[in-house]
């Protein structure tokens, strides 16, 4: 049975990219489920806005800027990887890692002050949601920073695996997008 030369005319998607997008699809369900629950509970009962008033919008806005900028440095790292510029690739990866750690540091400061004021995950339904959603997100930021750091080390040698920067970037941008929705949902409404 002859297989015609045109049978695979469309380029196949690289396995790594497929894998990461499938993983992101499951992450959409994970955060989407949490966010849907929050929205539904919020719409179903009054008095939540009062609890949210105890959060610091300026601190979270700074954190939003930090994460947005880290997405820029991450995609610039990808651009450098495409160009084969090892030095700039590592510099942008390092910046991304630093910005991610900054986000986590600010989050830790926030949690500390909130707990000191007596707002723990058990204080009420708003606070349960707040700590669960932002905590899960923060764990994802931490995981991303660790992956980016291993990439930083990996591309210090040869650029043979630099395509992985794009894959790590997909994950990192997704984590940024989750925060793009968490910030207004939790802090602004």
């Amino acid at each position, binding site marked *: 049975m002859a297989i015609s030369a045109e049978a695979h005319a469309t380029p196949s*998607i690289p396995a790594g990219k497929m894998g990461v997008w499938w993983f992101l699809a499951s992450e*959409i369900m994970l955060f989407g489920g949490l966010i849907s629950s929050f929205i539904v509970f919020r*719409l179903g009962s009054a008095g939540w806005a009062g609890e949210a008033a105890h959060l610091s919008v300026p601190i979270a806005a700074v954190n939003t800027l930090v994460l*947005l900028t880290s997405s*820029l440095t991450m995609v610039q790292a990808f651009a450098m990887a495409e160009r084969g510029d090892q030095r700039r690739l590592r510099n942008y990866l390092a910046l991304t890692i630093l910005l991610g750690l900054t986000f986590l540091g600010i989050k830790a400061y926030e949690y500390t002050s909130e707990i000191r004021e007596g707002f723990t995950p058990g204080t009420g339904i708003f606070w349960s949601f707040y700590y669960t959603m932002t905590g899960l997100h923060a764990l994802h930021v931490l995981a991303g920073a660790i992956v980016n750091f291993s990439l930083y080390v990996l591309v210090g040698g040869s650029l043979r695996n630099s395509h992985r920067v794009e894959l790590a970037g997909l994950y990192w941008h997704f984590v940024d997008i989750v925060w793009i929705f968490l910030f207004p949902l939790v802090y*602004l*409404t």
Partner: protein
Amino acid sequence: MASHGVRPNYLAIWGWLVALMFVGLAASFLPGTRALAVALIFATAVVKALLVVLNYMHLKFEPRLIYAIAIVPLLFVLVLLVALFPDFVFHH
């Protein structure tokens, strides 16, 4: 890694993301109805997310299967959200 030709202007996209963040912040202080402020805040969030997905995640340049992998779970989440309304929002 295959080149896709012209890439988006990443810095310009970042500029838009920052600007939209401030628009969202400003919207929360708007006079007028709460509903309008919330709608504006979420509209800016959606636009920001689209900017990141299409440009930073390069979905603009990807084949349709990747679009499907990104969009279908979102639809499921929307279905979940709406399906929960009768129990929690409209009170049994």
